[in-house]
């Protein structure tokens, strides 16, 4: 009797182990497949971006003034794809490989924000959005992965652009000890506390209360928060009763900074 129970238990354990092994193997294959797909997007995107920039800087000959807006629009669309693929790649490494690696360097924030705004410029202009930047030039150099932080700022600005009900978006920065504080302020609709609680969670698609259409994929701010946390910083979203909203992030100042 006992022998029978032990044999059944052993068979169950062996079956369970085989199933767990298959599951791990399947997960690895899945991770590898998604990594490959993301990688296959990256080279054409790099090429398209470089081609547009070569055109804009006159390397392929003079571009007429009336043609430039079209190239800028194309650059903006490439930037959106770039951010999406970057998010997908980071998500794969966060959730499947669990090996997200930051390429940290000592870098000033102002040129990163400038680059981000440059890419978003034509879209912001079309939407009639005024972005006011203040205090970024005075920040000390940060210890950051510039590409990832560009995407974090882009995600915050995109969120503000989607949810603002009017008025400008303010992008401001100030230093406080070993961390720099970066804030994106805008006026949006009031947000119910239960929605606000999850707004920076991965996969939580924030809904614009004024419409029934989902306004986000649930990735942008969720991934941005995880990236900020991977830097040792913090990210939050606060909205008061009148709809004044603030996305705040803290990023580490470089040890090399004075």
């Amino acid at each position: 009797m006992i022998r029978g129970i032990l044999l059944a238990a052993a068979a169950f354990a062996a079956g369970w182990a085989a199933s767990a092994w298959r599951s791990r193997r399947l997960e690895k294959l899945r991770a590898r497949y998604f990594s490959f797909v993301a990688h296959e997007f990256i080279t054409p995107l790099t090429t398209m971006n470089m081609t547009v920039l070569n055109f804009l800087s006159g390397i392929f000959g003079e571009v007429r003034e009336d043609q430039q807006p079209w190239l800028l629009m194309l650059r903006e669309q490439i930037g959106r794809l770039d951010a999406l693929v970057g998010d997908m790649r980071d998500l794969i490494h966060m959730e499947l490989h669990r090996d997200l690696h930051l390429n940290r360097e000592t870098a000033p924030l102002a040129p990163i924000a400038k680059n981000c705004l440059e890419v978003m410029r034509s879209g912001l202009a079309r939407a009639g959005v005024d972005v006011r930047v203040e205090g970024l030039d005075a920040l000390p150099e940060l210890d950051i992965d510039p590409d990832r932080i560009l995407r974090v700022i882009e995600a915050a600005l995109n969120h503000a652009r989607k949810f603002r009900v009017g008025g400008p978006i303010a992008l401001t920065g100030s230093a406080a000890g070993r961390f720099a504080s970066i804030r994106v302020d805008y006026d949006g609709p009031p947000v119910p506390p239960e929605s606000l609680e999850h707004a920076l969670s991965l996969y939580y698609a924030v809904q614009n209360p004024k419409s029934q259409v989902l306004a986000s994929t649930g990735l942008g701010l969720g991934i941005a928060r995880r990236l900020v946390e991977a830097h040792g910083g913090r990210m939050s979203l606060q909205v008061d009763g009148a709809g004044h909203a603030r996305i705040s992030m803290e990023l580490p100042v470089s040890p090399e900074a004075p």
Partner: protein
Amino acid sequence: MKKILIVEDDSALALNMAAFLKLAGYEIHHAADGPAAVQAARKFRPDLVLLDALIPNVDGFEVCRLLRADEKTKSAKIIMVTGLGQMGDVEKALSCGASDYLIKPFDQDRLLKKIEKALL
């Protein structure tokens, strides 16, 4: 004039990098796979090699080892270009003898900064 060998199997990307870097004052050569890269490096003796990690026939990591083992090419700076970008790949590139690495997607600014830093 400093010489740069671009090792990249995507010809559209190679052409764009070449157009930009020529204007920035570099002499450019191009190879599209591993064996051609080793041959071109031995022939042109570049100051710097922009070496894509995923190229046909012999991958970039192995090309990097071969260039480091060859008297004619071992002093060239090598920037490994990768779309992979995770810690393992970066460590692998550096352990193969790469001077630095550049992660796709990148733009002209980032490319030029990496090159100027390597050639200092």
